């Protein structure tokens, strides 16, 4: 099958000089064997890739019409919305694409956690994925500043100010980030430049991500290694068509928001031009940052976790502890392959970890809910409990459960499990 199109003379000519076609065939064609039991949760990797392309293409077009200057940025975005041909469509795609990207990547990440895709021998694949998430967060944060609305400005002010918590060099770092002594035109300029750069860094990381993926290939819902050809099917046409179908479904949902609820994920305040003299009553980041925002704000001086990590307030300020905790909440994922001692990958065979996975998932959602609420009253204590649980899950529950838990018997092979299930 693989060699059918190699009979075409043009393909043959190119192939002899540069083996593009066999490369493609081995990467996502009929010569790339894939576990035959992947379910629809495995669609979100290709979906994230699709949105990355959509974001880059729409972003390049937007950049042609955008002016990165504090006096014109807000107005130039409105020019795009009103006067550029289909500018509103391109901008709404880019705006909602950010949310769509994070939805896909978060599902992709939780899928990896549920089915143990981070475990040996896919640790590097997972680690590169964590770096992709970090790069995405930096890109999204800087992109949100560009329309120069109230939330752009004040979000940038709050987040860049976090770096001032770093001892000794903090203030210098903030000045460097700002290019001055407050968030102003130089800040907007460098954020625009970096926002244009970062997606290509992400593309590079994605190449490494896929490279690592192709070494040991996809994990699968059973979490067991493929035993032989009977466990596998070629990527093309089986998974190409399944991915395409998934893209169709996803585009339906994505385009629904673009056309019928384009500002659903946005903040009304960002349709007010940035004003350094007027602080919005509640500064909230985009929804995909809310859980981290909740963790950041959980660290008050009376929070017992702060008292512990700072040795009773001696080592660091609560602000610094909050900043470190916020970064740690993601960086700890880098250690996940080693924190989890269980050899069994899939939670289908891990009766105890199964429940802790879902509790952790709900905890993340709850942190997101808290992040969107003002830091007052019972929200503070609830955020602190959820934050404590978040770190307890990664540092304590995962290792302890993985050692104590007795997994269910795992099937012999993918094909034997499929036959047993009566297919």
């Amino acid at each position, binding site marked *: 099958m693989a060699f059918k199109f190699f009979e075409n003379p043009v393909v043959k000519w190119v192939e002899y000089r540069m083996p593009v076609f066999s490369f493609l065939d081995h990467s996502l064609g009929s010569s790339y064997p894939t576990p*035959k039991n992947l379910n629809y*949760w495995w669609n979100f990797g290709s979906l994230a890739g699709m949105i990355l392309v959509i974001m880059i293409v729409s972003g390049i077009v937007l950049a042609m019409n955008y002016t990165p200057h504090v006096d014109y940025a807000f*107005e130039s975005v*409105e020019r795009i*919305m*009103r006067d550029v041909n289909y500018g*509103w*469509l391109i901008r*709404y795609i880019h705006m909602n694409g950010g949310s769509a990207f994070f*939805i896909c990547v978060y*599902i992709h990440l939780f899928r990896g956690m549920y089915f143990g895709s981070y475990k040996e021998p896919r640790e590097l694949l997972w680690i590169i994925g964590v770096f992709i998430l970090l790069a995405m967060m930096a890109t999204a944060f800087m992109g949100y500043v560009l329309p120069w609305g109230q939330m752009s400005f004040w979000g940038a002010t709050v987040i860049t100010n976090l770096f001032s918590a770093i001892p000794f060099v903090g203030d210098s770092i903030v000045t460097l980030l700002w290019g001055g002594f407050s968030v102003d035109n130089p800040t907007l300029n460098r954020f625009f430049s970096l926002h244009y750069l970062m997606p290509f860094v992400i593309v590079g990381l994605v190449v490494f991500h896929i490279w690592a993926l192709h070494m040991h290939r996809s994990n699968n819902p059973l979490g067991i290694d493929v035993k032989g050809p009977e466990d596998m*099917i070629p990527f093309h*046409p*089986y998974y190409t*068509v*399944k991915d*395409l*179908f998934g893209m*169709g*479904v996803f*585009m*339906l949902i994505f*385009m*629904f928001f*673009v*056309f*019928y609820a*384009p*500002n*659903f*994920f946005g*903040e*009304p*305040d960002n*349709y*007010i031009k940035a004003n350094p003299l007027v602080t*919005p*009553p*509640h500064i*909230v980041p*985009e*929804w995909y940052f*809310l859980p981290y925002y909740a963790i950041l704000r959980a660290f008050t001086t009376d929070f017992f976790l702060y008292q512990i990590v700072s040795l009773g307030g001696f080592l660091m300020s609560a602000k610094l502890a909050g900043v470190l905790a916020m970064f740690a909440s993601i960086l700890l994922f880098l250690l996940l392959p080693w924190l989890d001692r269980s050899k069994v990958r899939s939670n*289908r065979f891990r009766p105890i970890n199964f429940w802790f996975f*879902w509790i952790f*998932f*709900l905890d993340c*959602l709850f942190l*997101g*809910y808290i*992040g*969107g*609420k*003002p830091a007052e009253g019972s929200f503070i204590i609830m955020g602190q409990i959820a934050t404590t649980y978040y770190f307890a899950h990664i540092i304590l529950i995962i290792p302890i459960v993985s050692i104590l838990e007795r997994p269910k018997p795992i099937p012999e092979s993918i094909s034997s499990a499929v036959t047993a299930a009566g*297919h």
Partner: protein
Amino acid sequence: MKKVILSAFAAATIALGNVAVTGPAEAASGVKPPAQEWSWTGPFGTFDRASLRRGLQVYSEVCSGCHSLNLVAYRALGEVGFSEDEIKAFAAEFEVTDGPDEEGEMFEREARPADMFVSPFANDNAARASNNGALPPDLSLMTKARFNGPDYVHALLTGYEEEAPEGVMLMDGMSYNHYFAGNQIAMAPPIDDDSVEYADGTEASKDQIARDVVTFMAWAAEPELEERKRLGLKTMIFLLVLTGLLYALKRKIWSDQH
């Protein structure tokens, strides 16, 4: 198993959506404005043209004394049924500074359709000076820049109280409004029954005036809305057919695997 995951995901999506949409709203504004029916909501909604015309009249006769509409050009009125001559005549009532001319002098000329709506004040300081220190905000994006924008603006315009309730001290020149955050607003009650005399003979009740000017402001904020919904319908139908075909293809290709 599958059901558990799916329902958890559905719950998650809804929870996240709620956070994004209502989270900060509850804290930021005071009373939730009552929901109104608007002609442009829903998947097939369009701006009521007659209401929009009346709304422009309200903006011109009432709001534009203090509020600018900086992001909207006169020519944009052509998209909602104003003829070229109407737009030219409407724009010509305003003066803009242009130049420099060949002698290097700035000069005044009549506004043209390509100009943006002329602001009532030369700059923010002039606006503050004439308004007791308060800055009347630009209205171009007002209905997008507030939670439940159209309902909020309607409620604000009709939500004044002649006297502040007992125990509430108003500062000099301020008015009491149920829906404004903090209830103290620098804008005096802008409209009342018969504040305008409609050219089309519609009875100008306070509610009607508010509805019309909100319709106009909603159009000013989202002039692409009608085209967006039209194109959206085509896109959704196309995607539905495409996805259906892809599903059939997927079933066919996978038929030898089940």
